[in-house]
C-alpha cells in the first residue's frame, strides 16, 4: 500500500482510471457512470410524473413526452441498472472466488469504456436534434416513421454499449470457470457468483439477437435496406421477435444478480447459512433456461394465433415455480436466524413481499386472454416497476450499502440510509400500487396526457406524490454518499462483523493484487468456516512468491472512442440522401459523414492491430513488496 498512500495529482488519477485494468477500479467506474445515468433516468421519471399529475397538462408536449419516456426506459435498463450490477459483479466476483483479477482484464476495461461512451452517445441526442421517441422497445413501424436522428442515436448507441455488455459477459463466464481458487468448487461458490455466472451466460445468448435487430434498424434507417419497409417486402414483426428474444432474458440478466446480492445479504445479517443452497443454484439455472422460452408473452396481442399464445402462456406461468422456490428458501434462511436490521437487510426484507406482488401479477399476465386487457395498459407499467424497482433497484440499493466498505473501505451512514429506505419504499408503493388500477380502468401506457372525467385524476396525483417521495429518498442517498466520502472514515477487515464469503476475509482497502497468497477454500462460506475454526485466518493454497499481474492500457479507451466517432459517421450518412427513408431524406446532407465513419473504424482497427502485434506480457509483483504490505497491515491492526 506504499504506492496508494501517496497523494496523487488529479490528472494522474484520471489517467490511472482511464487506463486501469483492475477489476476493483473498473467497478468504481461502473458505479460512478451507472449512478450518473440512474440520476438522469430518475429526473426523466420525475418529468413523466409531473406531466401526468393532472389531466390535460401541457408541461411536456406529446413529442417531448415520448422522448422522455423512451430515454427513461433506455437509460434505466441499459445505462443504469446493468452497469450498476456490473459494478457489484466486478467488485465482488474475483474476490469471492479467490482470484487476483478477472480472466481478461483488458476486455474488462474495454467493456466499461464501450458502455460509458455508448451511454454518452445516446444522451447526446438531447443536444443534437432530439432524443429517440419510439419507446425503449422502439417497435419497427414507428421507429422507421420517426423523423430526425433520434432513433439513430438509440440504435447506434445501444450497439456500442451492447458490445461492451457482451464482452463483459464473456469475461465473467471465463473468470468463474477458470479462475476459482483451489477448493472453490462450483457448489461452494457464493450465490452472487452463481447468479453472475448464469446472468453472464444469458448475456452471451441474449445480446446477439439484439445486435442483429439493431443492425436491421440501422441498415433500414442509415443504409437504405428494407427489412422493415412493408412496401418492399419487409416485415416489422421480426423486430418484435428479435427485441423480445433479447428483452425477456434481459429481465433475468437484471434480476438474477440482484437475487445474488439478496442471498448474500440475507445469510450475512441472519448469521445463518443460506437455506437450500443447491435448490437455489438449480432454480437460478432453471430461471435462466426458461427465460429464453417465453419471449412471445410480450406479444400476446400481436396476433400470433391461439396455439402460439397458449404455449407461451404455459411457459410463462412455469417460471413462477423456480422463483417461488427462491422466495421460500430466503424466508427459511431468515427463519431461526438472528436478524440485524441494517440498511441492506431492510432492503432485503422489503424486497420479499414487493417482489412476490410483482411476480404474481406476472403470472396473471401469463393468462393470455386476461393479458389482452392488461397489455400496454398501466397495469403493465405497475407490474414491471414492481419487479424491476422492487427487485433490481432494491437489490442495487442493498448492494450499494452492503458492498460500499468493500469498494471504498468506509461505511455509508446507517441513519441516513434508513431514512432513504423508508422514503424510497413507501414512495415506491404509493407510486406504483395505484397504477395497477389505472390500467384496469382502461388507461393505456405511454400516453402523454389523459382527459378529464375518465376517473384517472386522483390515482395519477397519488402516483406523482409517491414519485416525489422516491426523488427525495435519492437526494438523501446522494447526501449520504457525499458526507461519507468527505469524512473518509476508514474501516478494517470484515466491517459488518458477520461476513461469510471470501471477499470479507481481505484487509480493507483491498490490495491491488487482492490476495497475497491465493487462499485454500475448505467449504461453502469459506471465511465463516475459518472464523469458526481458525480465528478468521485463511489458509494459503500457495507459498508466498512473485506473481503475475496485467499492465494498464489506454487502448480500450481508444478502441471505444473510435466506435464512438464512427457512430456519428453512420448516424449522419443517410441524411438528405435520395435513397433514404422519408424520416431523414429531407434533412441536410453531410458529406463528411462517410469520412467520419471510416476514420472512426480505422482508429478502432488500428488500436486492435496494435494490441495484437505488441506482446503485452504484464509484470511481476515481487515477494518483497507483498511482504512489506503484510507487515504494514499487521502494524495497522495493532
Amino acid at each position, binding site marked *: 500500500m506504499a504506492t496508494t498512500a501517496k497523494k496523487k495529482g488529479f490528472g494522474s488519477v484520471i489517467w490511472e482510471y482511464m487506463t486501469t485494468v483492475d477489476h476493483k477500479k473498473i467497478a468504481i467506474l461502473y458505479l460512478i457512470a451507472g449512478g450518473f445515468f440512474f440520476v438522469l433516468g430518475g429526473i426523466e421519471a420525475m418529468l413523466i410524473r409531473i406531466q401526468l399529475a393532472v389531466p390535460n397538462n401541457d408541461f411536456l408536449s406529446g413529442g417531448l413526452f415520448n422522448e422522455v419516456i423512451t430515454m427513461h426506459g433506455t437509460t434505466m435498463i441499459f445505462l443504469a441498472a446493468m452497469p450498476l450490477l456490473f459494478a457489484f459483479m466486478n467488485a465482488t466476483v474475483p474476490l469471492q472466488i479467490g482470484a487476483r483479477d478477472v480472466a481478461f482484464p483488458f476486455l474488462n476495461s474495454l467493456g466499461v469504456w464501450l458502455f460509458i461512451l455508448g451511454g454518452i452517445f445516446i444522451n447526446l441526442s438531447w443536444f443534437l436534434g432530439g432524443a429517440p421517441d419510439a419507446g425503449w422497445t422502439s417497435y419497427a413501424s414507428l421507429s422507421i416513421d420517426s423523423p430526425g436522428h433520434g432513433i439513430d442515436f438509440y440504435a447506434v448507441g445501444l450497439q456500442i454499449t451492447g458490445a461492451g455488455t457482451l464482452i463483459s459477459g464473456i469475461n465473467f463466464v471465463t473468470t468463474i470457470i477458470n479462475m476459482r481458487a483451489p477448493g472453490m468448487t462450483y457448489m461452494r461458490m457464493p450465490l452472487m457468483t452463481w447468479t453472475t455466472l448464469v446472468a453472464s451466460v444469458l448475456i452471451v445468448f441474449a445480446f446477439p439477437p439484439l445486435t442483429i435487430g439493431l443492425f436491421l434498424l440501422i441498415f433500414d434507417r442509415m443504409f437504405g435496406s428494407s427489412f422493415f419497409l412493408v412496401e418492399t417486402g419487409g416485415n416489422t414483426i421480426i423486430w418484435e421477435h428479435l427485441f423480445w428474444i433479447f428483452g425477456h432474458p434481459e429481465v433475468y440478466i437484471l434480476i438474477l444478480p440482484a437475487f445474488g446480492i439478496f442471498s448474500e445479504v440475507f445469510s450475512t445479517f441472519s448469521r445463518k447459512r443460506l437455506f437450500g443452497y443447491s435448490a437455489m443454484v438449480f432454480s437460478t439455472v432453471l430461471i435462466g433456461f426458461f427465460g429464453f422460452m417465453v419471449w412471445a408473452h410480450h406479444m400476446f396481442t400481436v396476433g400470433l394465433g391461439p396455439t402460439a399464445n397458449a404455449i407461451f402462456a404455459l411457459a410463462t406461468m412455469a417460471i413462477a415455480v423456480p422463483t417461488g*422456490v427462491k422466495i421460500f428458501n430466503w424466508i427459511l434462511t431468515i427463519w431461526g436466524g438472528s436478524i440485524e436490521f441494517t440498511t441492506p437487510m431492510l432492503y432485503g426484507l422489503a424486497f420479499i413481499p414487493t417482489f412476490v406482488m410483482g411476480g404474481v401479477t406476472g403470472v396473471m399476465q401469463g*393468462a393470455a*386472454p386476461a393479458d389482452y386487457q392488461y397489455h400496454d395498459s398501466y397495469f403493465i407499467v405497475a407490474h414491471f416497476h414492481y419487479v424491476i424497482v422492487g427487485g433490481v433497484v432494491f437489490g442495487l440499493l442493498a448492494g450499494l450499502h452492503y458492498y460500499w466498505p468493500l469498494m471504498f473501505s468506509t461505511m455509508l451512514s446507517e441513519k441516513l440510509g434508513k431514512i432513504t429506505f423508508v422514503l424510497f419504499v413507501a414512495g415506491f408503493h404509493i407510486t406504483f400500487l395505484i397504477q395497477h388500477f389505472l390500467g*384496469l380502468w382502461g388507461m393505456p401506457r405511454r400516453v402523454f396526457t389523459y382527459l378529464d372525467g375518465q376517473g384517472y385524476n386522483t390515482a395519477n396525483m397519488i402516483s406523482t406524490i409517491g414519485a416525489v417521495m422516491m426523488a427525495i429518498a435519492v437526494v438523501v442517498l446522494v447526501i449520504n454518499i457525499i458526507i461519507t466520502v468527505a469524512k473518509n472514515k476508514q474501516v478494517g477487515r470484515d466491517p459488518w462483523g458477520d461476513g461469510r464469503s471470501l471477499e470479507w476475509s481481505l484487509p480493507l482497502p483491498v490490495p491491488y493484487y487482492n490476495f497475497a497468497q491465493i487462499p485454500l477454500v475448505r467449504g461453502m462460506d469459506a471465511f465463516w468456516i475459518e472464523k469458526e475454526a481458525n480465528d478468521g485466518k485463511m489458509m494459503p493454497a500457495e507459498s508466498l512468491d512473485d506473481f503475475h499481474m496485467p499492465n494498464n492500457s489506454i487502448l480500450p479507451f481508444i478502441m471505444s472512442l473510435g466506435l464512438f466517432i464512427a457512430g456519428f459517421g453512420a448516424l449522419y450518412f443517410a441524411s438528405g440522401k435520395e435513397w433514404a427513408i422519408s424520416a431523414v431524406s429531407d434533412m441536410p446532407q453531410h458529406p463528411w459523414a462517410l469520412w467520419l465513419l471510416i476514420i472512426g473504424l480505422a482508429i478502432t482497427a488500428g488500436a486492435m492491430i496494435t494490441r495484437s502485434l505488441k506482446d503485452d506480457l504484464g509484470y511481476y509483483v515481487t515477494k518483497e513488496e507483498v511482504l512489506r504490505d503484510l507487515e504494514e497491515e499487521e502494524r495497522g491492526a495493532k
Partner: protein
Amino acid sequence: MKNRWMSAKWIGLIVFLAAFASGCGKNHLSTLRPAGEVGQEQFYLMVFSIAIMLLVVVSVIILFSFAVLKSRRSKLGEDYKPKDVAGNHVYEVIWTSIPILLIIILAVPTVYLVFKQGDVRGMENEDGGINTEETIVNVTANQYWWEFEYPNEEVVTSQELVVPTDRRVYFNLKGGDVKHSFWVPAAGGKLDTNVDGINSFYLVFDDDSAEESNRLFYGKCAELCGPSHALMDFKVKALPEEEYDQWLADMKAVEEPAQASTDDAAEGQEIFNNSCIGCHAVTPQGAGAVGPNLANFGDRDLIAGFLEHNEENLVDWIKDPESFKPGNKMTDQYDLSDEEIDKVASYLMELKVEEGSGDVESLREKPEEDSEEGGN
C-alpha cells in the same frame, strides 16, 4: 421501526381493498365493468387469477412476517448463534409442487379461452369468402384516427364505430401507417393493428350494459404510435339490432354529399370541395382515404376523436390542428382564412344522415359477387 413499517403495510392493504371495492372505474371504459361476453370471460379469468395470487401473497407474507418477528437479534441477544440448516427436502418438494398445482389450475381456463376467443371461423362462409350473415367491420388505424368499413354493406365511416348489441361483431384490423392497437376496454382485450397483415377477432356488446352507459363506449389506441398516441380515442355506439340496421340503411342511402342549407354553409361546401375533399370524403364510401370520412360528421359525439362536439371547437381544430393533436397529417395541408374556416365549419356541422331515409330490407339483398371483396 420495522414493526411500524409492517403495520403501515397492513393499513395500506385495507386502503387497497377499500379502493378496490369503491372504484371499478367508469362503465364505458373500465375492464372491471365488462359489457359483453368477451370482456366478461376475461374479467372472470382476471378475478380467478387474482384470487389464486392473493392466496399466494397472503401465505408468503404470513410466513415471512413470522420469520422476521421471531428471529430479531434484539430479541435473541447479541451472542445468539443460529443453527445452520443446509435445507429440507420435504419443504422443497412442498413449495415446488403447490405452485405447480396452482399453475395447472390456472392454465386450464387460460388455454380454453385462448382458443375460444381466437376462433374467428364464423367470419368466413364455406367457400372461404366473407360471411355476409355476420357483422363484420374492417378497421384501419391511422395516425391518429380510425376508419371503420362495413364490407357487407359497403359503408365507410370513421372515428365513431357503430355496432349492434347482443351478437358477435367481427373485426379485421390493420394499421395504415404505423402499428396501433385496437382496444375497447369495456368490451374486451385489445388486438394490434399491424402494418404487415390483418388480425381478426370478435367482441360482443350486451344491450343491458350498453343502456347503462348511454350506448357509448370508449375505444383507445393501446400501442405507442407517435406524439398524439394519447389522443387517438374513438367512440363505440352500441345500438339494438333494428336501430343498427336502420343506421346502416340510412348511411347506404347517402349517395351524394348532403346539400348545405344556409348561405354560409353553401359557401363552406364550395371551399371544402376545393381544399378538403382530396382527403375527406363526404359520402360513406371509399375506404382507405387519406383523412377521416366525414359523411355523418354532424351526427357525431366528438371532434377529432376527443374534443366536445360543437362548432367552436371545430373552428379551433381546423385553424390549428397541430396544437390539439401534435404530429397529425392535416396540419399545413390547406391555406384557409378565418372567415373561410367558419364557413367550412358550419357546412360540416350540417353533414347529417337523415334518419329513416334508408330501406332496411334492401340492406341484406346483395348480389352474389359482392361477397368476394375484402374477405382476406
